[in-house]
């Protein structure tokens, strides 16, 4: 028996799970008023999701393995992922197929080679095959996918039934829960329609709880199963099967209860899919030499390797692959429907990219263990201005440009990644003077303007400072003040505040400012 070290205890697992904040699909989780996180179903498994994350100036979608139409879970909710600037594409399910296709064709299919620069800039002006959104969704949601999966399931199921008919038992290691549940359902349906009585066992310490759980989570299941809720039928058939004593659930392989019910041929769902752990390894040692027995393996597991401990193996092995992500031909139509500005794409999947199919967005390739710098796509932060505050402002049109400007004072609040400007509790005393001036102040004009205000003033001296271009002029204003200006800078010198304000006011009347 292989020896395993358990790095974590049950208490560790529980302790960890206590720190987890559970979310519903499309529930808004706010981190620190700054990040808004939302999960949307990915269709891969019950509860699996893709993430949409919004932060000030940044928003992105983390797109993991997704299945458009699922037999158990809620379908892939891709429409809710629309409108993000960046998509981090991390569905690696097609990687095996790529290698196969690639070897097959000889590596020349793609026009994007490894040597190309890393960023492929999209250009919307390049004509490309235009999919109307409806057409694309049709392509994405075509029935082929689920029909294919159903065919696969039917094939496996009939193969299993054939084995049992010949008196052989069937071992199904549990990998993905959804697949196991679907197989269980199809097998029992077929047995029923053939009026065959073959016991089905599920041997796992968590099976009882898991099965109970699946029948109490209608919100997380596909439309077809939700309909069962509304009709008052159980969501999954296993409760009924257990009641009819067709399905037996035991936590352990060696228990007196199980031995009482045990009868071969039988169909056993159990752990572990590596065949190195749990009841699966025991049952394998019992059945590996029986040629009528059958082992169902998911693709990705090396059957030779898995069965290598058993010298004489005559047991049949059926390897099958189930859909575990977005099919490669749907990746780019999907991305184009999601309308991102930038897609971060795994370097390993680069062969899938052709410059043609990525023309509406830019692509940036990432690979394991290397940091990718993502350029900023928004210069500005998103904010909102309360109208009651806006009404208090005094906008002024600038004659030079088609621009209006207004001084603004408000209470700044950050909420859900957006800045909000509210009216402060106290009235907002906007400065009556223009605090910021720009452009040059012409001394002669200033002199005239001051005089117009009835202020006695004269140019005191004219001085050319070291910098030849700037001429510094000094104006004596009555007896109490002087103004020194060189065109770009002005110093008002007086002890009298009122006089200073008056001079400043005069200045702002002869140059632009706010």
């Amino acid at each position, binding site marked *: 028996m292989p020896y395993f070290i358990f790095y974590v205890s049950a208490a560790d697992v529980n302790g960890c799970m206590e720190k987890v904040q559970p979310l*519903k*699909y*499309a*529930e808004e989780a706010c981190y*620190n008023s700054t990040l808004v996180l939302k999960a949307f179903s990915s269709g891969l498994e019950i509860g699996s999701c893709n993430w949409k994350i919004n932060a*000030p100036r940044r928003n992105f979608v983390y797109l993991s393995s997704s299945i458009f139409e699922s037999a158990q879970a809620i379908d892939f909710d891709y429409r809710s992922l629309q409108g993000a600037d960046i998509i981090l594409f991390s569905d690696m399910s097609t990687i095996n197929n790529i290698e196969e296709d690639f070897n097959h064709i000889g590596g020349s299919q793609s026009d994007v080679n490894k040597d190309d620069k890393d960023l492929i800039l999209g250009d919307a002006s390049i004509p490309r095959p235009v999919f109307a959104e409806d057409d694309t969704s049709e392509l994405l949601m075509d029935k082929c996918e689920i029909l294919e999966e159903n065919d696969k399931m039917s094939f496996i199921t009939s193969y299993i039934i054939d084995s049992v008919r010949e008196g052989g038992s069937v071992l199904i290691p549990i990998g993905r829960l959804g697949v196991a549940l679907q197989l269980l359902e199809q097998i029992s349906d077929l047995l029923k329609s053939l009026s065959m009585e073959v016991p089905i066992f599920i041997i796992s310490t968590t099976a*009882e709880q898991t099965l*109970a759980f699946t*029948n*109490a*989570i*209608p*919100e997380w299941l596909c439309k077809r199963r*939700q309909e069962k*809720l*509304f009709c*008052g039928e*159980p969501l999954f058939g296993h409760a009924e099967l257990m009641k009819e004593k067709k399905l037996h659930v035991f936590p352990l392989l060696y228990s007196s209860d199980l031995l009482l019910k045990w009868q071969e041929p039988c169909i056993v769902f159990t752990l572990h899919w590596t065949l190195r752990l749990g009841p699966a390894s025991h049952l394998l040692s019992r059945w590996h030499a029986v040629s009528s027995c059958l082992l169902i393996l998911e693709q990705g597991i090396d059957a030779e390797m898995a069965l290598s401990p058993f010298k004489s193996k005559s047991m049949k092995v059926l390897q099958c692959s189930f859909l575990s992500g977005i099919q490669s031909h749907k990746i780019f139509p999907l991305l184009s429907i999601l309308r991102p500005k930038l897609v971060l794409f795994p370097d390993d999947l680069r062969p899938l990219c052709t410059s043609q199919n990525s023309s509406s967005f830019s692509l940036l390739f990432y690979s394991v263990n290397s940091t990718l710098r993502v350029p*900023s796509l928004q210069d*500005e*932060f*998103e*904010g*909102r*201005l309360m*109208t009651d505050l*806006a009404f208090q402002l005094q*906008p002024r049109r*600038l004659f030079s440009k088609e*621009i*209006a*400007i*207004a*001084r*603004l*004072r*408000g*209470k*700044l609040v950050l909420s859900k990644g957006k800045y909000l*400007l509210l009216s*402060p509790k106290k009235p*907002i005393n906007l400065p009556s003077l223009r*605090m*910021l*001036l*720009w*452009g*040059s*102040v012409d001394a002669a004009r200033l002199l005239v303007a001051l005089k117009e205000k009835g202020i006695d003033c004269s140019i005191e001296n004219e001085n050319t*400072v*070291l910098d030849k271009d700037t001429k510094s002029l000094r104006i004596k204003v009555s007896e109490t003040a002087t103004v020194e200006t*060189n065109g*770009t*800078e*002005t*110093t*008002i*010198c007086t*002890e009298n505040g009122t006089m200073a304000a008056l001079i400043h006011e005069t*200045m702002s009347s002869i140059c632009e400012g706010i």
Partner: protein
Amino acid sequence: MAIECLVLGAGQEVGKSCVVVSIGGRRIMFDCGMHMGYLDNRRYPDFSRISESGDFNAALTCIVITHFHLDHVGALPYFTEICGYNGPIYMTYPTKALAPLMLEDYRKVMVERRGEEEQFSFDHIVDCMKKVTAIDLKQVIQVDKDLSICAYYAGHVLGAAMIYAKVGDNAMVYTGDYNMTPDRHLGAAQIDRLELDLLITESTYATTIRDSKYAREREFLKAVHKCVDAGGKVLIPTFALGRAQELCLLLDDYWERMNLKVPIYFSAGLTIQANMYYKMLIGWTSQKIKEAYGTRNAFDFKHVCSFDRSLVNAPGPCILFATPGMISGGFSLEVFKQWAPSEKNLVTLPGYCVAGTVGHKLMSGKPTRIDLDKDTCIDVRCQIHQMSFSPHTDAKGIMDLLSFLSPKHVILVHGEKPKMAILKGRIESELGIPCFYPANNEAVSVPAGQTIRVDVTKSFLRNHFNRNFNLSKHEPLCFSDTIINHEEISEICSNERIAEGILLMEKNKIAKIVSENDLLHKLDAKEHTVQLAFCCPVKVKNSQQSLDFSTGGTKPLPGESNSEPNPPHQPEKLLRAVSGFVQRQIQTCHVTRGPVHPGDLMRPDSPPDGPDTAPNNLSQPSEMNASFGTPFCSLLELLSREFESKIDCCNIQKTFDHLQLKSFQARICLNDLCSYRIQQGQSDCKTETFFCCSWSLSDDILARKLLGIMREVELDISNIAFLLPEHASEHMEM
């Protein structure tokens, strides 16, 4: 923009809940209930008030139903199938599953037992439910581009929800019926602290404060136990859903604990079917039940047996759940007729019965005879137990919810007028929230704030946060858009801090809030800096010895002046040091940001390194600190102490040659020709020294105040000696 709220039902009454709210250009109908007390057209809300033309699809954006009770969903099939509403309808999963059972049960009762013409058929219910979108709690549903809704747990019955609706900046909550305390099968209502313009709440128990529910549950169990112990039969009339399951949980649990064997029956298949739903919807029940269901589903009742009509008169004790709840007819009335005459038996009554029902008659006093019609009368000798636990919140719960959410306005529905009036008074006086309780078909309009979408520049935010960091004596913030910084920012934002900037509006562009620099950059303009300056005389005295201070500037350097017979007192020595330093660093007497003014340049004894580099000399403070800095600082120190004692400021920055408060700077000026001295008569050179001051316009008020202080004070330089030891090391570090 205002939020308009048209109450079509449950206005100053309980029954036919229906409120139509116009918010941000959308129109939402909350609940679509029927009134159980009326058989005429008052039974339904007056839908014609939504749209005179009857085009409800155009008039409404969507309908949201809070829970499966008929006073909240009863009119829905009528509205969709007869009135023709075709738009979106939302309700939670349990409500979508259970509402059709309630509707069908009611329809049957109405048609079969009252022989009434049916308002809607079974097919109508089925078709209506097909139009419903089921929603989960907390899931943000995007009804359209602008309108989003979200359901929160309301307790009350399985699947009951409070509904949050948001359009742009305006948000509201419609509570439906809710319970703020958990009961045997449901949790308490739960909601986030939302910013709300309006809250519409039920007010069934507007003035009641209820004590512990457990005491009343015990009472109920005791009464039932006593009855069956004595061999009696217990009739529990209930609706098929909700109360039936709650009481059954209670009894099943009690039976288990007390090891009782008396059978518990459900009269209707409906209730058994309902249990099936409850088992699947266990995720919507109380925490306790949820936690246990992995091993045993609490709705798999152990002591419930299958029922047969023949069992009604079978000997021995039993418990029977029968519909309808108020004994208004149907099977519960049938059984009541047979069991009521025996004093051994017990009939339980729900908390609320509509007038005209047998239940209502039993509640009012203790009748011994009930005349059903002219031919039938029943002898009532059985025991009556009225249950007083209700799945509605009490007044305390309503007030708790309101103070938790503190909405800007409150509207009360689903209550009795006099009690609503009292509650309104409490809400307005205790919480200061304007409150309304319109009658049916009345509309209330409440104001609601609105915002404009703007862009906010980095530099504006940076200025704001930097300023606030400085205010709170933090290190200046290195600002980027990483999370770490935002963590600090959101902390700051919790206090009311005023941000200053400029709103920049351009044709066909989103308005932008910018900093001054952004604006200049945008306009491609250079700032014209305006500085204010004044070289201010300050009186100086030496309380120990008179001192010719003002001549320091023209006297020989300290090293050469040691020919005096008596060694000078320390203060004098220090002042000499000061003047010596100033001699060398004469260029320091100019406005920091201002031009190098002529007065400085004309000094005869400029240092040999020349005027061009002079302003930069200040960048070598350590050397100067060592030789001259300390006494120099001390004069500034004296001044700054004056400032600190006269105005409320604690953040005066001092360096070896100047002091600074905000943009206001002051440094000692020994330049007699300083261009910022405005000669106003002959100044007294013997007792005055000059501080050259400069500041920017934004701090003008402060600067004027400081100048005023400088004019009034008299600095006592004999204090410098006392200042020196404790401050010397401090200044060294500057």
